[in-house]
């Protein structure tokens, strides 16, 4: 479609030393379709009601793939200089430490509630339909 158009090697900013080379429209369309497919897969994980390790693994895999394509292609990070890439991705990596600490803390708080406050240790999940049944039983 757009093959006839000859590109200037300027970026959007007209900033010639930022070599933001032209990416064919096909890259965007392919990633777009891929994101649709990955989202459908994520939804299917829920629709077919996978549970346990399989569910968590699939959710995480599809999530990281989607996030990766959005950051790399749509946000053009793939085509940036490594100096900017490390600035963008470095600081958020520290969040992994926060996740680790809060997971440890959460486990401690949960055990405290069970051991000292007598709250149930098995916080099983509850279905919406069961809540409705209980409500009907009360009336």
């Amino acid at each position: 479609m757009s093959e006839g158009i000859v590109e200037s090697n300027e970026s959007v900013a007209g900033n010639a030393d930022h070599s933001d080379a032209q990416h064919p429209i096909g890259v965007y369309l392919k990633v777009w379709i891929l994101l649709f497919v990955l989202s459908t897969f994520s939804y299917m994980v829920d629709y077919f009601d996978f549970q346990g390790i399989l569910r968590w693994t699939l959710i995480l895999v599809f999530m990281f793939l989607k996030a990766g394509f959005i950051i790399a292609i749509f946000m053009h990070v793939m085509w940036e200089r490594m100096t900017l890439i490390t600035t963008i991705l470095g600081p958020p990596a520290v969040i992994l430490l926060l996740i680790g600490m809060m997971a440890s803390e959460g486990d401690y708080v949960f055990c405290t509630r069970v051991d000292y406050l007598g709250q149930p240790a098995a916080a099983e999940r509850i279905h919406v339909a069961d809540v409705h049944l209980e409500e009907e039983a009360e009336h």
Partner: protein
Amino acid sequence: MTEHALKNEGHIQNIVDDWSDDKQAYHVPWGKLMMWIFLISDTFIFSCFLVGYMNVRMTATEPWPYPSEVFGLELFGQNIPLILIAIMTFILITSSGTMALAVRYAHFRDKKKIALFMLATALFGASFVGMQAFEWTKLISEGVRPWANPFGAHQFGSVFFMITGFHGLHVSIGVIYLLTVAFKVDRGDYDRKNNYEIVEITGLYWHFVDLVWVFIFAFFYLW
């Protein structure tokens, strides 16, 4: 930037060169760099929300509801799990695609197409917010509150309103931002300097909003 051509000698050498540069470390327009720094700070805000959600969910001794049931809808006489959220996800991805095309047309300085694709992006964003308003209305009418939840752990209500509310605010601001820039592009405000980097900067913000939704969808709605 006419002082010298930027050398490209491999990633590690580039980092060394850029940081030892006398004038500037980042060879991108300042507006784009500022947007990236804002987005990094926003990443921390949303991360704090999601980590807080993880902590609250781990510590809850009351049963956690199944989001796929809470957000299910009855369509054509059938209960379809999580369908509203799935549709919202697809709408947001579609809007990211149209935004990517708007940024692409910014390279060609094709004003009509930039404005058109940004307008389409804004419309998808607005419909996303509309569906979120519907979702909130439905849950509020069922008795879910920031301090209460009839379907199980009360923390579910707090987390839901806080995280989706903050994300919805981002989408709403993004819609206003997109409409403003689309209008200015169409009016020819950027012609004088022939500088369309604002389209790319707006695109970064919009893709980030989509990116955050990917994490919310995975951790809050699917987990």
